[in-house]
């Protein structure tokens, strides 16, 4: 064999080897990719299950640990009745206040540029990040009897701290960012063209706002208001610091849970179950509303 033939023979051998190898690898690649896919799916499934269980277990435990008859009996407890009534009225008042005060702010910030807008935007978002206890003490320093504004009000005979009004102020303080942010996004979703079209058709700014912009943004505004309402129902830290913990006056449901824990666990569980039920309704409503918003925007 001359050198040329040697090279040719070795090339053939190499080609045969590669061919065999490729048949072999095709099968093993197929199997290993299937194994990989199955294990990936199993892994992801496990993570999803653990995440679900991590949230579901404590919620389910609430229901398991409090038998229905005990819960129903606790519903008649004056502590529960007072807390429920106070929480629902203050949260509803908060939601109304936040909508009235927050809607113009959200609209202006969605549509216009003005000096200091960035600063105001950051300020609006601040209470979401601020620890509630800090919010409570800050409110006390502002509106408390010795507070910056509070001592002037006190001189006029107006007391805010440790009253039901303080409960509402604390709730507005912590929940307004949720509404304003959602409302702003909804207003931004209404293209300025619709506003322009309405104006050229003879509609004033007010008519345009009430007949075009508000209806087009309404789902987002309602879901924002529901979120603010829900956040108010759960408010604890700022309320206890700024409004105190007086049954019937400032003791909202979360405060009643905390107080009852030290005596009657059944009462705590009863209030907790009511709050969980409300949370479920809130999530469902927000989901339905935001889905409708996306559907409208998409088509």
């Amino acid at each position: 064999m001359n050198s040329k033939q040697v090279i040719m023979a070795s090339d053939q051998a190499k080609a045969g080897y590669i061919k065999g190898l490729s048949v072999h690898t095709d099968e093993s690649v197929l199997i290993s990719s299937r194994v990989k896919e199955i294990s990936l799916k199993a892994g992801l499934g496990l993570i999803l299950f653990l995440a679900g269980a991590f949230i579901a277990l404590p919620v389910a435990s609430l229901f398991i640990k409090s038998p229905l008859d005990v819960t129903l009996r606790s519903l008649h407890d004056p502590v529960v009745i007072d807390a429920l009534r106070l929480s629902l009225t203050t949260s509803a008042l908060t939601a109304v206040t936040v909508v009235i005060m927050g809607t113009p702010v959200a609209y202006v910030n969605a549509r216009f540029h003005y000096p200091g807008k960035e600063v105001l935007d950051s300020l609006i978002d601040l209470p979401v990040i601020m620890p509630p206890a800090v919010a409570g003490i800050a409110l006390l320093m502002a509106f408390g009897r010795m507070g910056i504004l509070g001592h002037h009000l006190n001189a006029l005979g107006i007391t805010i701290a440790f009253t039901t009004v303080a409960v509402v102020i604390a709730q507005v303080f912590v929940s307004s960012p949720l509404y304003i942010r959602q409302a702003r996004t909804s207003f931004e979703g209404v293209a300025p063209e619709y506003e322009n079209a309405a104006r050229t058709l003879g509609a004033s700014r007010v008519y345009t706002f009430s007949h075009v912009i508000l209806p087009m943004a309404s789902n987002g505004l309602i879901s924002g208001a529901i979120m603010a309402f829900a956040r108010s129902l759960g408010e604890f830290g700022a309320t206890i610091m700024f409004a105190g913990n007086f049954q019937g006056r400032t003791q909202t449901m979360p405060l009643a849970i905390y107080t009852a824990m030290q005596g009657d666990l059944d009462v705590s569980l009863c209030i907790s179950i009511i709050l969980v039920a409300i949370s479920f309704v809130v999530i469902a409503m927000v989901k339905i509303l935001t889905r409708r918003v996306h559907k409208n925007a998409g088509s």
Partner: protein
Amino acid sequence: MLEVDAAKRLRDFRLDLRLNVAEGEILMLVGDNGCGKTTVLNMIAGLLSPDAGRIVQAGRTLFDSEMNVNIPPEARNIGYLFQSYALFPHLSVYDNVAFGLRARKLPRDEVGLMVKDQLEAAGLWDIRNAKALRISGGQKQRVALARALIIEPDILLLDEPLSALDVRRQAAMRRELRETIHQYGVPAIIVTHDLRDVACIGDRACLLENGKIALSGPAEDVLEWGKTAFA
């Protein structure tokens, strides 16, 4: 007669133009994207204010920088067809067309009669209850035009009225649009970048380049410009 003499600083250039449109005349405003065509319409409609100049319609001053006159868009009585039509998606076809009359606080039965006439004339009566979101592109264009015409505008402004339609519908719509606008006999400005629109719809045409009128003449001559300006 609509008289426009307006200047406005835009991001890339200065818009500076003077144009007149007679009653019943259709002026086609032609030019590339971003040459300031829509800005001209928005200034006439009052959605944007010129930095200087004046806009007068049939002796009524809509804008005058020296006399500090700036009538808001809702008081200018202008029929404006937006490029995207801007039909209110939460309202039905009927309510979209009725919008301008209701904003003027016209009595309910008068609104009903006028809207019925307008919808029947435009062939839209059968779809009056459909949500504006759910109708076809051609129907949207008709609804938007009906909505702009029902207020009996003193000026008509149309921004790329045919661009959202398919080619086959465009040809039919050109003729229809020309006839409809001529019926109303008010000054009309149509913005387009399609030279076929110009010759088929317009009476006169202006070519806008970087905010200035580069060429102006009878609409039929535009295809001649095509050989020079657009070459």
